[in-house]
């Protein structure tokens, strides 16, 4: 479900000159068949045959993100958006080139990836807060705020497996937006929950922008990104084909 376009607030980001993310000539190659067994490996080594076809997910990508900017990454499926986000977060390492960061990063790569269904909401808040890099004191301090934002106060001590998917995503999103990193990586999360909650999420994003946080957002919601971002990068087959004005970026992608 995509948020209604009128619900999307105008960008409140205030770009500065301070560089926060520097991506220099990053290339990342994946092998397509990676579920090989030891037997296959031995045989292919003996026959000197290449084991798998490889595919270039990122091809010499350069990108600089400044403090306070909200940069959108758009492109069709398989264009390398998520791979790029993962190399910034440290989950994937570039094959060549390098990525540099300043400050703390938290990735909302996939909301709820660190949630465990057999733990209660409260335990999950602590576990996820810690996974996203918060200290015990920070979580203690923010706990009430996190729960209030997710609007599931009465179920916080229930096991997460009994939550509806909406409740689950709301809690996960709530933990993520309260981690207060310097650089925020967001992947397709603005399609969470019902409309009032979406509006609240977008409001929260706006607050973060106002507070000068740096954001890199991946989404297929082009209209929404156009309003939210200060700059949009268009990726095509692992290459950047456009980097600049949001409206023009969306036109570029649609024309390609």
């Amino acid at each position, binding site marked *: 479900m995509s948020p209604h376009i009128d619900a999307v607030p105008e960008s409140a980001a205030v770009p500065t000159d301070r560089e926060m993310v520097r991506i220099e000539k990053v290339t990342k190659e994946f092998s397509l068949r*990676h579920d090989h067994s030891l037997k296959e490996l031995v045989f292919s080594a003996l026959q000197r045959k290449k084991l798998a076809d490889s595919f270039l997910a990122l091809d010499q990508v350069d990108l600089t993100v400044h403090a306070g900017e909200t940069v959108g990454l758009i492109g069709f499926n398989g264009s390398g958006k998520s791979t790029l986000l993962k190399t910034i977060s440290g989950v994937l390492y570039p094959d060549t080139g390098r990525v540099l*960061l300043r400050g703390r990063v938290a990735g909302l790569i996939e909301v709820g990836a660190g949630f465990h269904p057999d733990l209660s909401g409260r335990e999950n808040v602590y576990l996820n807060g810690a996974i996203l890099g918060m200290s015990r004191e920070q979580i203690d301090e923010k706990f009430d705020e996190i729960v209030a934002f997710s609007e599931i106060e009465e179920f916080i001590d229930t096991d997460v497996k009994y939550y509806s998917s909406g409740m689950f995503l709301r809690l996960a999103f709530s933990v993520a937006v309260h981690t207060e990193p310097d650089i925020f990586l967001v992947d397709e999360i603005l399609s969470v929950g019902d409309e009032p909650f979406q509006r609240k999420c977008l409001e929260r994003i706006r607050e973060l922008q106002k507070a000068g946080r740096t954001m890199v957002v991946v989404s297929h919601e082009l209209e929404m990104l156009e309003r939210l971002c200060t700059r949009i990068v268009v990726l095509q087959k692992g290459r950047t084909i456009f980097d600049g004005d949001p409206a023009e970026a969306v036109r570029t992608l649609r024309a390609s």
Partner: protein
Amino acid sequence: MPTRQEQAAGWRAPGQDAGWLNPIRERFLLRLLVRKELRVRYRGSALGMLWSYVKPAVQFIVFYIALGIFLQLQRDTPAYAVYLFSGIVVINLFSEVFGNATRSITGNQALVSKIYLPSELFPWASMIVALVHFLPQLVVLVIGALLFGWLPSTTAAIAFVLGIVILVGFTMGLGMITAALNAAFRDVENFVDLIVMVATWLSPVLYRISMVEEQIGGTLWWWVYQLNPLTIVVELFHTAFWRYSRPVVEVIDAEPWLRAPGEPFGLWWAGMLIAVATFVIGTVVFERAKRRFAQEL
């Protein structure tokens, strides 16, 4: 990697962390991961933690009947029950640390491939979980030994601490290597199961070490057998809980073959060397491999 100049300006590479120091730096997260493992392990089971008593108990009874009574090992070995159980707990701890650590990366696939966090924490968390499960067995062992007229002593304490340190260091080293390999080839976990199965029989758990010496003493194999870190640890546990209990002390002069080579601590220094070396190699291999975990899973 950022140059020194860039580092001074606050730049760092993503995923750059404290490496092998992570489990110490990230104690809070490590503790939460351990708690999660413990909660999840026995979800929906009525007996819960009691299972960590039931399994070794059944194992013990079966071995005691088959080997102690049918093969009459208990006739020549005083306090055979204590002898047997102190070896079984060593092998159990080894199997659990080794097996859990091997599966720790593949088992946390959702986290490893989506969110960055120091991956050393996974094998470490599974090691700590194994130690938690080891505790009840240790309590049972101590009570059993006391019933057989064993009294705590400094020698026992030293032997126990040496044994635990060697065992955990050695097994963690192996576990980190297999965890890294298992991310690429799932064959590894089956291989580990195989080693665990064989481990009980290739160290003096069920029989006495003197019987091995009678058969292969003086050969190269005898040295290989003795240098097996598990043999060293099992013998240290025998020193800690069995060797100085009353029934053994009473007959030891009449039956000198009950003595183990190099009493009281045997080849502990060799065990320690092997453990440290394995741990270091394991950590280095893991550190090198961890960058590829996310794309291999």
